[in-house]
């Protein structure tokens, strides 16, 4: 979120930027090419039904991917360097590998998808949920099979009613076409996907609070340990993961973890959906590679700051939970996890 200045900035901010040192950034290659974008229909201009989704590659050879087994899938995700897109940026391959593979008491495992996008400034998951829901359903199946999970619960925030209708329609279509349910995609793996609506509580975006909410209680967070991968939903091993993280996994499996890690700097690999909002001329959602300079994102995709770059007062780079940065820092900032940590901020959800 960007806000414009109404009066002259105090001089104190200069001393902050003088002390910072940028790590050497890989030369920015000028932005992603359209064929490298994972979300081809993020604006919903084309058919969002299962037919349209299959035309742009969803569910393609999902059965083969599932049959490759959990080790192969987790390995691909680890090779890709994917980090959680929900704000924390935890290495995804590592997180998914925490799920237990041997369960002596035969408790089922669950995948919970965090579609409770309540962070102010963030509206990226909304576009996936309403315009590309089949990427999410496909991802749920592949990630669920990588965790040996029985079912996925997509917890969508209550305020997103139209998005819930679109997502439920997509899940029903996928069941009808045999993509999920018994023998999902003819892979031999049984997997269910259910959509659960939240009811207006920001705290339910936290993983243990989400699990409490799914259990039909108040969404009050639990203590960790025990971690959800050991004791989660209804006492069963659970992983809570963001919509975007799950939705990019099928493409990573198809194109290869090496392809995904060809974008971005070390430790900050891949592409991401960014939101540019606030006082800009062209507020929008756009998919770019991690490591894109903030100024490029604001000027090229965001249409520039209202009243010109010099009118910029501050930028919140990743949802209001992350510290704000000044206009001088925004000039030099690079949108990835490490790039913003240098300015004592964080990438968060990548929504400005």
């Amino acid at each position, binding site marked *: 979120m960007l806000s414009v200045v109404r009066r002259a900035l105090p001089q104190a901010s200069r001393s902050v930027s003088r002390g910072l040192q940028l790590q050497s950034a890989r030369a920015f290659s000028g932005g992603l090419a359209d064929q490298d974008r994972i979300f081809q229909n993020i604006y919903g201009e084309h058919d969002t039904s299962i037919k349209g989704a299959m035309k742009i590659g969803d569910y393609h050879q999902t059965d083969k991917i599932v049959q490759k087994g959990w080790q192969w899938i987790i390995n691909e995700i680890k090779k890709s360097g994917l980090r959680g897109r929900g704000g924390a940026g935890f290495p995804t391959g590592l997180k998914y590998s925490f799920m237990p593979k041997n369960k002596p008491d035969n408790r089922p495992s669950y995948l919970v998808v965090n579609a409770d996008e309540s962070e102010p400034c963030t509206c990226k998951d909304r576009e996936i949920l*309403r315009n590309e829901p089949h990427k999410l359903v496909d991802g749920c199946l592949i990630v669920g099979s990588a965790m040996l999970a029985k079912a996925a619960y997509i917890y969508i*925030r209550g305020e997103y009613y139209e998005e819930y209708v679109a997502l439920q329609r997509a899940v029903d279509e996928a069941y009808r076409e045999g993509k999920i349910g018994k023998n999902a995609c003819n892979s031999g793996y049984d997997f269910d996907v259910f959509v659960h609506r*939240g*009811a207006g509580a920001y705290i339910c975006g936290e993983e243990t609070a989400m699990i409490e909410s799914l259990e*039909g209680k108040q969404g009050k967070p639990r203590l960790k340990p025990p971690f959800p991968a050991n004791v989660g939903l209804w006492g069963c091993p659970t992983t809570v993961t963001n919509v975007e993280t799950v939705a990019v996994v099928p493409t990573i499996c*198809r194109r290869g973890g090496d392809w995904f890690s060809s974008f971005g700097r070390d430790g900050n690999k891949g592409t991401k959906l960014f939101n540019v909002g606030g006082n800009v001329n062209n507020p929008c959602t756009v998919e770019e590679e991690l490591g894109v300079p903030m100024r490029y994102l604001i000027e090229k995709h965001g249409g520039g700051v209202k009243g010109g770059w010099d009118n910029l007062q501050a930028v919140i780079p990743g949802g209001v939970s992350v510290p704000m940065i000044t206009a001088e820092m925004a000039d030099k900032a690079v949108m990835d996890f490490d790039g913003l940590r240098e300015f004592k901020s964080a990438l968060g959800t990548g929504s400005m």
Partner: protein
Amino acid sequence: DSSTMAAALRGGLRRVATTMRSTSMQNLYPAMGVRQFRASNPAFAGAIYNHVDTPDNNADTPWDFTKENYDKIKEIVKKYPPNYKRSAVMPLLFLAQKQCEEMPEFGNSGWIPLAAMNKIAKVLDMPEMRVYEVATFYTMYNRTKIGKHNIQVCTTSPCMVRDAYGIIDALKAHLGIGVGETTPDGLFHLMEAECLGACCNAPMMQIAGPICNDAYYEDLTPESAIAIVETLRKGEAPKKGSQIGRHCSIGPNGKTVLTGEPQAPPCRDLDAC
């Protein structure tokens, strides 16, 4: 040393005592020794946690789900493990709230009477208090009657910098009510909401009710917000989504990416790797 410190402390205490007797403190504590009572802001839309019995909302009010809703409940409960039916309490509360919109004895307004919560407890075999806990925790459940159309304007930072308060002021002036109040004809209830997740289409509002069904109205100006309200007053459905013709989150100046046809990504030979 300790004696100088003691002297400094005594001096400090004397200064504090003098300050307390000064006029600035007397403005805050006009009658020293008497605790002030201050009323908090009035609560709105079921924001108080305790239930207050009224003639049309008490444990004996007759309330039951319709036959169609019972069929829906059967489908909802199937989504959760059979021994954890209470997970269905949230969808059922929404169902009850939606059903009250069609019930004239509850004012054709979307809210959840106490009797409905008790019925849900019976249907799901759970103690009533557990249903009350859930109904009081989440903000979308109304426990008192509000207007037919619940206008929720987002005023969190991204919308606020794009003049969401201007929208609120325009609606307040037009409807003649304050935030958290219902119009005298019972048609509109106005409230501020926390981030509704449409930050690229700021400022925006969500309207709950029988015609709008929680739709978003985005890219508002004070004039377009008032136009939406007037369309609702006539009983027609306003245009959903962006009010300035944007498609989803494509910027007002047009797309900067994905200008061609969508392409399926190449899939490598999965047998080989």
